[in-house]
């Protein structure tokens, strides 16, 4: 690329460049930024008078809404935790476990597809698998294991978490693979020649290096699950009152028409996903700095 700083003689004036990016910014303001800000402002507006108030936020502290947030956080945390653990193990197994080479592109492609295969079709798929007459349910019953008899139910917290894992695990694989690739083989060899066992290498060097990436990816998974709604709606409907479902009902007008409370709910959601993503970006920057 050119490094010379002499003024270029473009026929397109600088003004033209600004005009060129205009539509993008216009679009962003109209359909991304303003709607969001308007919601945030609305969260602080009184329903009737339109004046500034904290009452909407305070009303978030009702038991039912608190319960919703707790439920959302629990499902998101559970699916993020297990998604992270399983995703990490899977990625390590395929990338560094000494398995055949063709497994890696297969895993990557599949993860790309599976992380996209969510929402309503995923709910259907899991119903066909672990529903009362599902394939796996019946298979297990033939072997003598009755999961529904033992208390399992797909349309519960556990079932939803299990379903979420179908896109959380692939997402983890995709996000954490670059970090694992970044583990130079020389570090392993250097550790070995200095007397370390494989276990010591992983404990003292590889994992500490990977840790910021793992943590960051988990946060990404958490934010991802927190905002998810289509899968939940299709699977458990309003049975599991997670925050997105609550919001959905608010918007639909299924509940007492109280939009300002809805705005407050949205603000809460945005805060949680926003902070998680920020933390993810920070951790990724730190990890990158080490592995220059």
């Amino acid at each position, binding site marked *: 690329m050119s490094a010379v700083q002499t003024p270029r003689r473009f026929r397109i004036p600088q003004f033209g460049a600004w005009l060129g990016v205009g539509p993008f910014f216009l679009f962003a303001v109209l359909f991304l930024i303003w709607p969001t800000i308007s919601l945030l402002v609305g969260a602080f507006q009184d329903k009737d008078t339109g004046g500034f108030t904290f009452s909407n936020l305070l009303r978030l502290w009702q038991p039912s809404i608190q319960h919703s947030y707790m439920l959302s956080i629990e499902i998101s945390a559970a699916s993020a935790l297990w998604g992270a653990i399983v995703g990490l193990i899977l990625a390590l197994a395929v990338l560094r476990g000494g398995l055949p080479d063709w497994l890696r592109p297969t895993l990557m492609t599949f993860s790309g597809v599976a992380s996209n295969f969510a929402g309503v079709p995923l709910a259907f798929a899991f119903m066909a698998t672990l529903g009362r007459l599902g394939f796996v349910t019946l298979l297990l019953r033939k072997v003598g294991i009755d999961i529904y008899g033992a208390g399992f139910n797909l349309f519960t917290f556990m079932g939803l978490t299990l379903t979420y894992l179908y896109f959380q695990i692939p997402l983890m694989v995709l996000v954490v693979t670059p970090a694992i690739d970044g583990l130079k083989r020389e570090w392993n060899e250097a550790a070995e020649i200095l*007397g370390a066992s494989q276990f010591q290498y992983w404990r003292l060097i590889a994992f500490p290096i990977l840790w910021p990436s793992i943590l960051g990816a988990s946060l990404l998974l958490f934010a991802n699950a927190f905002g998810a709604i289509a899968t939940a709606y299709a699977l458990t409907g309003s049975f599991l009152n997670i925050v997105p479902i609550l919001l959905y009902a608010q918007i639909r007008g299924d509940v007492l028409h109280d939009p300002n409370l809805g705005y407050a709910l949205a603000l809460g959601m945005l805060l949680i996903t926003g902070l998680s993503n920020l933390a993810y970006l920070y951790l990724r920057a730190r990890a990158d700095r080490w592995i220059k």
Partner: protein
Amino acid sequence: MSFLTLAGVQKTYGANVVVKDFNLSVERGEFVTFLGPSGCGKTTTLRMIAGFETPTTGEIHINDKDVTHMRANKRAIGMVFQAYALFPNMTVAQNIGFGLKIAGKSTFDIKARVTEMLAMIKLPDLAERYPYQLSGGQQQRVSLARALAPNPQILLLDEPLSALDARIRVSLREEIRSLQRRLGVTTIFVTHDQEEALSMSDRVVVMREGEIDQIGSPTDIYNRPRTKFVASFVGTLNHLQAKIVDAASGEVEIEGHRAFTRSHLNGARPGDVMPMALRPEALRPTDANGDNVISGTVEDAAFHGAVIRVRLRVNEKPLLVDVFNAGEAGAPQPGQTLNVSFRPEDLIALTGE
């Protein structure tokens, strides 16, 4: 009694023979360099000594123990990698102390040893820095300290200077050598840079395509190369086709000039063509004529600082001559006729490959 022995070592990958029949005995405290172009098998051999690869056949002994199948982490060897390989999540001090920590030494001992090593590599203030905060040269010195801290029985260096700037390379070269001499640790150094090999080593092993071409001291390798490859890989060489006149007296004819050589012309018959070589610095401008003098026209004189490399044209063939820079006045001019002389012992017969 040799400290490190490689006997009949061979490494094959499938149908590909990467190292063929490698035999070497290294004395304790010796500095040996594996020199050769990319792909000649020098790094693979080094890695077999380290334990990262296992020989397909052959044996490796260190201090009388058969280590051929011993795991790398049990061999008490120190290694410096081309890409430094410092652990990015640890400080300089932690990196250097890593080997000792694995060995279970006390914190007090580790701290003392780390301080000692930092002083040795002359970076006493960098203990708490992280690798990404260091320059390439500093990282490599820390890497050296890390390898030496646990007092290894052998030190291996895999092209450690290739990734560094020219100036740092030269100073680090000297530092490595002086450190090695001081500690007396048996060292194997791998490089493709013949200047490094010649200036640092006690002995050089020149390798090509998995085989050893020659083992010898730097002067041996340079002045008495046994094969054409060794001669041309190490230093610059003028290749000449000489016609044998009399093998017994060493008389040959080069481009119409009579010359004598001290090299053995073993049974060559008069009229045979023998490839021979002359180093540019062995040719001296002279006013005389006669035996061991070649006459030619100056085509070009390239200024290399302390030396001027003159390209002489002799019967349409080039001949490189190095003359000392004696100021502007003494430099040969293009078009000028120049006679150069050489000693019989400088005319090398390339009897090998």
